[in-house]
């Protein structure tokens, strides 16, 4: 059933919330990111920080340094906008903080550019010890939040405002750093992350009708990225398309390009993503306008096939 990953996140926090180490921090967005569910159940371990994200991040760090598992949540752009605070008070500190950035990308729709995080993955990827995860559906979000109870070190979790189709089976098991091949194929590899995984799957359906067998890969962990699966795709499919609801400067496409280049792969790569700050519109319209909908993924795959 289609569900926003922010909602799955809020529900999952309640499920793991019996662990007394877990503390959830809010910057007056609990209804948007569903952490109000945790507050209802565990009010003592819910810390409302008000619209003061830098402080929220620092407080999360202090909680973590005193033994707590601190979940600080806000819109992705308001977290990554505090990059220096995250660098100093979380990353350099090696604090066991989880930053949950909801409302990622142009997929948020109407609210427009000021609320659209399109550079957060690049920013978080640049912090040496930061793990960066973007689940592609509700079940993956749930398993990921469960996994993160015992994970050590800072984590950035990127979540959507909009509902996402189920792309994983109900018995899905989350494995950090291991990309998931959702569909086998050897003509072209389509790599998505978060909300664009479903676009890649739809594109693969479209391409199959034309006799092109696309491999679809869900790159839920953007850092550390799965070299093995990416290189296998380059080797076996020969050409790759990445698609992300993020700009093209430092996100999934860049990470994949780094893996290919560092390993001497000459496989052609097309990187689909935003190139500006975003704007208002309907989510689906924006996916079309920014060239990251299934239609564009399929087009990119066809163009790559022609070029070879």
């Amino acid at each position, binding site marked *: 059933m289609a569900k926003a990953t922010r909602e799955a996140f809020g529900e999952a926090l309640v499920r793991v919330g019996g662990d*007394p180490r877990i*503390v959830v921090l809010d910057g007056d967005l609990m209804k948007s990111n569903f952490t109000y569910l945790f507050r209802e159940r565990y009010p*003592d*371990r819910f*810390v409302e*920080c*008000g619209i*003061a994200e*830098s*402080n929220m*991040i*620092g*407080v*999360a*760090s*202090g*909680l*973590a*340094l*005193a*033994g*707590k598992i*601190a979940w600080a949540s806000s819109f992705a752009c308001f977290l990554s906008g505090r990059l*220096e*605070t995250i660098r*100093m*008070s979380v990353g*350099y*500190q*090696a604090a066991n903080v989880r930053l949950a950035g909801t409302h990622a990308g142009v997929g948020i729709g109407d609210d427009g550019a000021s609320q659209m995080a399109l550079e957060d993955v690049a920013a978080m990827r640049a912090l040496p010890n930061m793990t960066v995860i973007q689940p592609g559906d509700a079940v993956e979000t749930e398993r990921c939040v469960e996994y993160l109870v015992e994970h050590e070190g800072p984590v950035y979790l990127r979540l959507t405002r909009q509902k996402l189709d189920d792309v994983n089976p109900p018995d899905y098991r989350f494995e950090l750093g291991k990309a998931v091949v959702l569909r086998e194929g050897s003509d072209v590899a389509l790599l998505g992350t978060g909300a664009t995984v479903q676009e890649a799957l739809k594109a693969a359906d479209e391409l199959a009708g034309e006799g092109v067998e696309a491999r679809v890969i869900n790159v839920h962990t953007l850092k550390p990225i799965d070299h093995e699966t990416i290189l296998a795709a380059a080797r076996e499919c020969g050409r790759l398309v990445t698609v992300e609801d993020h700009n093209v400067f430092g996100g999934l496409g860049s990470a994949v390009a780094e893996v290919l280049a560092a390993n001497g792969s000459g496989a052609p790569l097309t990187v689909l993503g935003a190139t500006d700050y975003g704007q208002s519109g309907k989510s689906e319209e924006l996916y079309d306008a920014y060239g990251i909908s299934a239609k564009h993924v399929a087009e990119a795959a066809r163009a790559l096939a022609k070029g070879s």
Partner: protein
Amino acid sequence: MEAAQQVSEVEDRRALVERLREEARRLRITDIRMLEKAGSGHPGGTLSAADMIAALYFHKLRIRPDDPMWADRDRFVLSKGHCIPIVYAALARLGFFPEEQLMTLRELGSPLQGHPDRVRLPGIEASTGSLGQGLSIAVGMAIAGRLDGADWRVYCMMGDGESQAGQLWEAAMLAGKRGLSNLVGILDQNLVQQSDLVERILDIEPVVAKWRAFGWHVREIDGHDMEQILDALDEVETVTDRPALVLSHTVKGKGVSWMELDPEWHGKAPDAEQAARAIAELEGTATGGGA
């Protein structure tokens, strides 16, 4: 109370004050030696903080040098991270690490980084150095202590220059709102920041009214008067409904007459000759009329 017991307590207090004054003097000397050896650092703000650091580390803080991560320890966060050498001097004196290591300050591979690094050096509670962030971390620690029903306290020393940072006031507001009486802020108000006097760069006054407005108990002291420091640190423990701030009026560069209140000595290490002169003054062996 028996008269004899009262006399004994007064004498104990007097002995304590004397001991801590001597420790502060030693910290200042060690600080100058370290900075001279490193060839860079911040004499002004380390010297202004020396008396408070001595009172905390050699008397007030409940810590175990042989077990730096002891769960029930008090936490000290130095938000004005550039002044960490004076804390390193105290940690070494207490045996957190060998005193010889002090002279590796700012060297490649040394745990004594130019600014505090909790990962590299046990005994450091929080890595700081980006001004305005320490109090947030201290607030988080204090909330954790509350959640655990623990009786340890969190002390956070801030500078007056960094009081210009917005995040510090975000943290102050949250601590006030939550009534974190296990949190003690110390404002080392030494009046000088890197480029000029604080009041000329961006005045933070009326600073007492600000902290009170944010829900804090405020106690003002002469931060170089050990008796006042001890009284203030005792007093804040009696406040049970709100966080407390000790507004410590200090002199940047205190103890070395020609460094005092001179922005020049915010972030410049003394050379060998200057260090010798500074140490002579601190040892009380200086001759003549000074520099």
